[in-house]
């Protein structure tokens, strides 16, 4: 049934009338004993049809060229929009990754701070008391502050490292998704 519909659609051609003219002309050519007048009539009719076909060809060519131009323009616009979209997506991904990196960095810094307070400070204090208590009274405090300063200064590098790592992971994820879509 579907095949029949396809065939019938194939038969339906916008050039049906022109095909009929061609068929009639072929039939005329295959005839024998044709008079000169009949030949003239047939040639006249064929010339009229040819004129019309030429007009149609000119029109269709112009329309087709314009459509191609339109498609090219639409493609260019689509390309520009695609670039803009990609830029927005990149910015969005960067912002999302940046937020995640900040959160992770904060957690790491809090953990480091707690670690310093609970684990590092007591031995530092003991060390300072043992070695500097006679000469430099505020040495324990300065050493503790120094340790916290190091943590504070490492905040930005840690964030950068985490951000780079997350961006790399995100790029890998996008690449994987693209390759899966292509498959």
């Amino acid at each position, binding site marked *: 049934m579907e095949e029949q519909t396809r065939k019938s*659609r194939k038969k*339906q*051609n*916008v*050039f*049906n*009338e022109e095909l009929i003219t061609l068929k009639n002309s072929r039939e005329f050519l295959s005839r024998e004993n044709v008079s000169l007048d009949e030949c003239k009539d047939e040639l006249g009719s064929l010339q009229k049809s040819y004129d*019309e076909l030429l*007009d*149609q060809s*000119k*029109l*269709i060519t*112009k*329309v*087709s060229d*314009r*459509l191609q*131009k*339109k498609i090219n323009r639409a493609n260019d616009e689509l390309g520009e929009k695609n670039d803009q979209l990609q830029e927005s997506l990149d910015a969005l991904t960067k912002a999302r990754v940046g937020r995640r990196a900040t959160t992770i960095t904060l957690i790491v810094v809090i953990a480091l701070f707690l670690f310093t307070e609970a684990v590092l400070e007591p031995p530092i204090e003991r060390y300072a008391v043992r070695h500097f208590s006679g000469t430099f009274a505020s040495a324990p405090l300065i050493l503790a502050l120094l340790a916290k300063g190091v943590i504070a200064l490492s905040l930005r590098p840690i964030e950068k490292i985490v951000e780079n790592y997350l961006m790399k992971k995100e790029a890998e994820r996008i690449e994987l998704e693209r390759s899966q879509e292509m498959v």
Partner: protein
Amino acid sequence: MELLEIEGTNITPSIKFDAENGVLDLKGRSIPENSLEFYQPIYNWLDSYIDSPKDKTVVNVHLDYFNTSSSKCILDILKRVDKLDQNGKDVLVKWYYDENDEDMMESGEDYMDLLEAPFELIEI
């Protein structure tokens, strides 16, 4: 003659051919997969109309977009209408195009060149 009315879709134009008033409207987008399938009933209607036309026939064409096979079908419609003009009837083709749609205006000019009937290009 019966009114020929076909509702427009995303790929076919709306058709309203009113034999009583001699007004033929063609509006929308024409990109059917099989143009002849869509336009054949219109040809048939026009062939009947040409047999007993009104003294004055106005054809309003307002298309946004059409594919190449439709361009041939539109020409076939307008050629039929042109026959009325050649038979001494009053015919007017009005080709509407949207402002800034230079392509559609140029297409109108191309059709105008191929027809003998009066042809108006109207920017809207």
